[in-house]
């Protein structure tokens, strides 16, 4: 396979086949953890780790696993890696464990991972599957971070609060105040309805970006702003 197609496997997951916005997989964690941008990053990285590892293992075992029982086999592999992530997070990033709560073990049932195992890793080689995992993981992490940013800035007026839990060298209580505290934040954005709303608007923006006629080159920045309003 040429270098070009390897690159396209990697970049496919970022916009064209963005798992959340275009394939509509993994919606539950997307909505649940994105009330803060830093949680989005943490969740994205945890899911990426599981995605890459399970893609590699499943692709390596694809000739061994009998076709009839493949789904239970995949789930067992994924659940194994999720348990690894759970232990690692509990041991080294305690604050993230508290922030993600039940959504951390729920990575097992994140449809992105099973979906990629079934659609990609079961048919392709180990290296390609790893690249696909990384690409999809980056797409997932970026989407979660952007969505978390929108919801956090509008809903609490801050950005990246709680990042000190992920990066220990940051001072405790680290956050960037985007909207001055004198303005009341739009708290509905951090609760459930805001999640659905922002997700809907972002999905519309992604549809518009990937299907719009090619001539409007300058438009993307505008679309983002329009999407946030």
């Amino acid at each position, binding site marked *: 396979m040429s270098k070009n197609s390897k690159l396209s496997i990697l970049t496919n997951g970022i916009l064209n086949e963005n798992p959340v916005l275009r394939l509509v997989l993994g919606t*539950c964690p997307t909505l649940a953890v994105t009330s803060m941008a830093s949680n989005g990053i943490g969740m994205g990285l945890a899911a990426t780790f599981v995605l890459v590892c399970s893609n590699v293992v499943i692709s390596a075992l694809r000739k061994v696993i009998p076709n009839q029982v493949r789904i239970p086999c995949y*789930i*067992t592999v994924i659940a194994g890696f999720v348990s690894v992530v*759970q232990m690692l997070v509990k041991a080294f990033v305690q604050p993230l464990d508290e922030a993600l709560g*039940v959504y951390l073990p*729920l990575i097992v049932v994140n449809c992105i991972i099973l979906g990629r195992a079934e659609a990609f890793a079961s048919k392709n080689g180990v290296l390609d599957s790893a690249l696909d995992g990384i690409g999809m993981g980056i797409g997932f992490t970026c989407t979660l971070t952007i969505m978390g940013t929108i919801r956090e800035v509008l809903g609490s007026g801050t950005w990246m609060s709680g990042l000190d839990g992920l990066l220990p060298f940051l001072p405790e209580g680290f956050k960037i105040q985007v909207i001055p505290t004198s303005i009341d934040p739009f708290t509905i954005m951090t609760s459930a309805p805001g999640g659905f709303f922002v997700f*809907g*608007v972002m999905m519309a923006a992604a549809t518009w970006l990937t299907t719009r006629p090619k001539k409007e080159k300058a438009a993307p920045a505008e679309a983002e702003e329009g999407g946030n309003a």
Partner: protein
Amino acid sequence: MALKLASIFFTMILVDNYVLQKFLGICPFLGVSKKLDSAVGMSLAVTFVMVMATAATWPIYKFILSPEGSEGTPRDMAYLQTIVFILIIAILVQLLENILKKYIPALYKSLGVYLPLITTNCTILGVTILNLDNGYSFIESIVCSAGAGIGFLVAMVLFSGVRRRVEEANPPKCFEGLPITLVAAAMTSLSFMGFGGIVEAIFGG
């Protein structure tokens, strides 16, 4: 006791509704809520699997994986929770699939691909783990799961009504399909926020 059970049950339906407030089980919520009868069938199947899964996982966790007094000893196998639970759920779903195929083929057909997907429905794994996290007793766990299932049913039925109106509407091109459905879900979720505190007020929980 009865009061506490009722309080758990109604909290799960109205205040902590899994779909609209906790974002669990969004995929089937968006996928199957187009038609009322498949929405009801799906929710009943999910409720059944939820209660069965809780009935199976609670004793397994409490008596086999992490028996009382084993914390910190090599006997404590709580770390196997995720793997064991998901396999139990997968087996239950397979069982349900065989039963439906044999006795209610019409429902089996209308659920289609979403039936095996109940395995990866996060509400089920979520409710079994949350029951243990909350330290509920066996009876409380069962009631909580039933409440979560009925809550799922309520959300699906309400939303399939909302959705019929949305399908007839004429949104901008890029909002067609899922995006406008999600915005409608936001409104439905907003209406459920109005229930906050109602259960404490009635049952004094």
